[in-house]
């Protein structure tokens, strides 16, 4: 279960969250909202990549910043820039080495990414970069999967493949998206960002 307890985050020009307390026990959650409403920041906080000014964020009662939880969380977000100097295959090898997992290319095959494994990350198209980002989030079989606008840039086939992969995913799934029409998944809870910002 992902929990935010009295979380505050302020940027010099705006307060993003003020004393936010939110429990997400549901398996599949979608966070909706307009561009710039704070969805990505919420995911970044949930992944422990952005530190709140105050408050605590925990997954299964442990801080999301703990090393143990790093292995249990997977994130795909445009703000998490992948190293462009690797080829895709090199990055996946590196990622698996760091997470001590075995590289399984089945998902790459499903997403139609196999022809691009030898392509340098900097040379990937937007859609293929998105697929690679999804692969890095999924490869180490996380218990909590955080996806930011996962359908952006994906073609129909890749979107179907992604929906199939996510349907089989057994951990907690939290998706942030401004457009849920392209997601054929059923969600246990849909939370508008407006509501979250209102709560905080």
């Amino acid at each position, binding site marked *: 279960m992902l929990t935010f307890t009295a979380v505050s985050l302020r940027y010099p020009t705006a307060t993003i969250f003020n004393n936010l307390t939110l429990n997400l026990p549901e398996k599949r959650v979608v966070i909706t909202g307009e561009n710039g409403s704070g969805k990505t920041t919420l995911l970044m906080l949930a992944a422990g990549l952005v530190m709140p000014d105050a408050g605590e964020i925990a997954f299964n009662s442990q801080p999301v910043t703990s090393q143990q939880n790093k292995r249990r969380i997977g994130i795909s977000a445009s703000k998490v*820039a992948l190293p462009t*100097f690797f080829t895709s295959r090199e990055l996946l090898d*590196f990622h698996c*080495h760091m997470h001590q997992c075995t590289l399984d290319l089945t998902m790459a095959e499903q997403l139609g990414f196999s022809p691009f494994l030898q392509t340098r990350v900097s040379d990937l198209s937007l859609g293929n970069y998105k697929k690679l980002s999804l692969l890095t989030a999924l490869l180490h079989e996380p218990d909590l999967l955080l996806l930011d606008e996962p359908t952006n840039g994906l073609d129909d086939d890749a979107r179907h493949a992604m929906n199939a992969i996510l349907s089989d995913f057994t951990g907690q799934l939290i998706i942030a998206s401004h457009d849920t029409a392209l997601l054929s998944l059923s969600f246990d809870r849909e939370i508008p960002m407006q509501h979250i910002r209102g709560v905080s």
Partner: protein
Amino acid sequence: MQYWQFRLTVYQRHLEAWLNTIKQAAAGVVYLFPMAMPALLMLPLLALGVMADSATSTQQYCLALWGFLLLTHSWVILQKDGILATPYEHYHNGLPLSTAQRKVTTALLTVYASHVFVAGPILLFLIMAIGNVDLLLTEPVSMSLHQLFPIAAACLLSVQVIRLALFSRYPIIGLILGPLMTLPLLGEVAKPLVIIVWSGVLFAEQKIPAFRLGLPLLLKGLLRFFLQADIAQANKVMLRLISLLILLICAQVFMQAVNLDAAIAAGYLCSFFMAVLLGSKLLDTLQVKAQHQFYLDSLPVTRTTQSTLAVIYSTLYCIPLLALILWFDSFNLSHWVLLLALLVVTKVGILLSQKYFLIFPCCAAIVAWWVF
């Protein structure tokens, strides 16, 4: 706007952009630039002076020529995209111009961009030839050749190197490995033979098909991450290597030409510059880390471990460069002690304050000078 003006504008815009972005290219080298700028401008002129003197020993001549060619090549390669208008390649190719017109404009722009390195030796050659026209006419041809050959050879080689910088891959054998390997033999061979072989190697190297060396499998995890980042940005690596080579060549030429006391003092000064140059590699590595901080933080590795591995990587990176300094054999034991101590101080300075790290080796150097 005329075609020439268009090419000139493209070149100037490129130069502006390059000057703005060089700060991100190799921070350590850039921090040294303000201090080294007057010396940098003087270097080609000093090298020309050494090369033009027919009494210069072969070793001194070859070292000066090597430094001059390294500077020339680096100078042109940094401006290459501006000279060739590469960012506007497709638009440029679509312009209704003859091949001759394009080539002449490129040649003129190259001379404009690399004036010191092209016009310098040519002008010196002409001054020497015209100024001594009486002697040239009265003395035997062999005597004239002896006087003018060194600077004429420098002119031809610099033109060859500029051409390579613009249109060919990096002449790693001709400009780096070859001269480095033959360094101990340079004093033993006649100047004309050196020039002919050098020119031949520069030409022949381009005929060898390009190949890629495999990465050592020994490095895993974050060390490999940093290594791959360096390989992808080979220009930064080359810039640091070339800067070190030029420093070493300057040290060698200068220390051989002055008395022992001055040579020892010059050695200390070079130790300082080399320590900062090598130590500042850590800045680049930390910059790569900062660029990918979100991704690295998503991995199960603490920030402390990330920084520790950055320090280890930048130290491993320095080992071949330290071996290069050893190969030149210019330094005595006290120079080495100072170099290694300042290297450590520079790294510590970077870890404490990336912005003002230079204060640390400067203060350490002043203390060392005051104490010893």
